[in-house]
């Protein structure tokens, strides 16, 4: 996979890398680039990381080192609906661990896993700073506050129903 023809990054990201190359300390933009890729594709694939290394002219080991160091970067694709349970102190004190457990049981997957149908993935997140409304769960970009255990299955069912509506 060393030939240029296999490059698949979106042209917007490619041109962003090119503007970075014009700047001083271009290699320092690596994380910004990875953020952009994750925004676009949902995760950092091996191919994309390799392509970044080539285009930004940094060792592939550096790209891999950075991607694996930071929690925010995902190396696996997410589900269509990414459920994220906040594990900040306030949420913990208000029972976020139980909410997380309920999601795990309800979906039959563990933390960091995706359901077989690719619909849901489950992760925990660092404090979202919405501590006043704890416990907090985000599903894709939507924030749900004061989540109770009963709401867990309700939330999932609601999403499933909506998803069916959309696709039919």
């Amino acid at each position, binding site marked *: 996979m060393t030939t240029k023809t296999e490059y698949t990054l979106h042209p917007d990201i490619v041109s962003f890398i090119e503007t970075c190359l014009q700047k001083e*300390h271009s*290699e*320092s*933009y*690596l*994380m*910004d680039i*990875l*953020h952009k890729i994750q925004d676009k594709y949902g995760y950092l694939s091996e191919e994309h990381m390799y392509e970044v290394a080539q285009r930004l002219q*940094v060792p592939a080991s*550096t790209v891999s*080192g*950075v991607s694996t*160091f*930071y*929690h*925010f*970067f995902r190396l696996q694709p997410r589900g269509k609906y990414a459920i994220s349970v906040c*594990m*900040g*102190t*306030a949420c*913990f*004190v*208000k*029972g976020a661990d*139980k909410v997380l*457990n*309920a999601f795990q*049981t*309800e979906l039959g997957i563990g933390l960091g896993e995706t359901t077989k149908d690719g619909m849901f993935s489950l992760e925990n*997140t*660092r*404090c*979202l*700073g*919405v*501590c*006043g*409304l*704890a416990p*907090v769960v985000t599903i894709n970009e939507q*924030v*749900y*506050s004061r989540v109770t*255990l*009963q709401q*867990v*299955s309700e939330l999932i069912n609601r999403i499933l129903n909506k998803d069916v509506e959309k696709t039919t």
Partner: protein
Amino acid sequence: MGKILDQFNHIKQQLLQKREQYLAGSKTVIQIGSATCENAAGAQQVRAEFEKLLKASGRKDIHIKQVGCTGRCSQEPIVGVFVPDKFPFKYERVTVPKVQEIFQQHVLQGQPVVDLILDKKTSNLYNRLVTFSSLSTATTELPTKWENIFNERLKTRGVAEGSVRSFHGGCLGLYSAGEEGGRVGMLVFPEKVMYAFSTEKELDKIISSHFIEGKVYKPLLADIDPLINRFFSLYGDVAFFNKQTRLTLRNSGIIDPESLADYIANDGFEALALVLEKNDPQAIIDEISKSGLRGRGGGGYPTGRKWNDAITSSDPVRFVICNADEGDPGAFMDRSTLEGDPYSIIHGMAIGALAIGAQKGYLYVRAEYPLAIKRLENAIEQCCQVNLLGENILGSGYNFDLEIRLGAGAFVCGEETALMYSIEGKRGQPRLRPPYPTQSGLWGHPTVINNVETWANVPVIVRHGADWFARIGTEKSKGTKVFALAGKIKNSGLVEVPMGTTLREIIYDIGGGVEAGRTLKAVQTGGPSGGCIPAGLIDTPVDYDSLTQVGSIMGSGGMIVLDDEDCMVATAKFFLEFTQDESCGKCVPCREGTLRMLEILERITAGHGTMEDLDKLERLGRLIKKTSLCGLGQTAPNPVLNALKYFREEFITHIQDKRCPTQKCSKLTRFEIDPEKCIGCTLCARRCPVTCIKGTARKPHEIDQARCIKCGECFNVCKFEAVLKK
């Protein structure tokens, strides 16, 4: 007036004119919170509804304004309806159906919707509100005393009962202790005037003139600082707010965080124009040193000294960095400041850059804060457009560029050397210090790193003077500190108080205490680097030194309240899990040591601990503190050591009785259904979130222990006490 100030005033006039056109003479302002927390509570839908209703009404004299969050988290979304010369009414937990009511009744017909008023669950509408506040450093005695005298006097003077409502607030920090001459501050709504007096005779004069004749009594009017008055005049009638002194959060809830003109209209960038005009960088550093400002990120290093360190180097390339990587779980002051008042941070950094001779600055922000990032980007762009950032700022010949860099969820990047590596595009692993960043920082150049709150204080100090700032706080900790009050507290939210305020005042007077029926157990400060302060030490003043003395730290400002239902072992374990997970792996004591400590805690919470484990924990903890490379490891054992110091009995109960007194440790809890008592009502089975309760109607049910997540829902809902918690 000099050339630079001319230029600044020119820009200011242009922006203000545009703002006037935009406001188009609006009289009524509907103000809606728009921070992440407000949005999570539904503020966006509320705003859309107001906009829809406003459009339908055809009124052109009403303006809808977005502001950052005021920090009254548990009552969000908050909507303010501000009409000139009327009470500044704020509504709590506004929902779309309530918008209709507020708009029809209050905005259009001028009748406030009493039931929804923030923090005032009363059907009585008062003619006037009065708040008594201390003029100097925190004391609640004087305001309380005068409040009582005032109420008695009103009665004897025949002022209708129930027409005036009184509060006693905290400190306004206008004078240093003793200088106020025994006077007390008295803020009166809706006139929004502040009196200062010290004798009953003077109070009588105010009552006669203001409360009986309805005329402001001018001789005793206090010269209240406009900075503090701005916040007080909008929020001073709410008990949660009027005990606070807002410097860092001075604009949160007041300005539109996406409008530079709004910031400028509130004295924004005046301080920068002043220092550019003077062009004396050393004078800025001296002023900051004199103010006694210490780093608000947790370390408490004197800011002025840090800046002085950076200018000793002969290297002409220097940087300033804002550490906005608020990774401490349970802390959200920085997010709120960034979302509610991004301009102040930029303003502070520009002044700092001028002081140390930096031409470039970086804002290192958590990627988890998309709204803060968006607002910062917008603010930087607006500042560049009017030449408050960029080349030759205001014609001064001085250049300053600001760039945002995103973190990616690594707690260790709050450590300054790790943060700099991260900006350089590397793994955020800390290195040994010295050399300190002020000597060899970003790409080897002298670099000053300060936290969001520290930067936000800089313009205030420059504008109002070091002496004014140093009057607030204690001898060694100057100014105010913002805390993110959360956990088992009635009024969770952002609290900014003068240093030296006691935990009791924060938790009870402002936070409203714990929920009814519960008792306060401990207060956690400093997040994963701090510790729990037991309820017995609640009179500890909050300043850098006092908190260290009781074994915790100031930290960045997270303050989590724990009640009798919280297990201290589980809480200690929670923090250690966090630091263990966040350990970067570079040094052995932190990487391996915290893991071993965590294993021991897991054993204890599963009922397999031994008494020797406690000694082991303490020995390991001390060792990790002494030998770790960076602040993360050096403080990681704190929550455990601190819990062992104050709550050792609880550890012993877990070990010897194999019991968790609060039933938080799920491995030590078990729910069972008593077949004698269960009547088979099926309620528990229906409510069980994991459907692990089996049984047919009118027959005893049974819990499948293998699938039970021990949430306790069955225990809570059973009406026949048939579910047993063991």
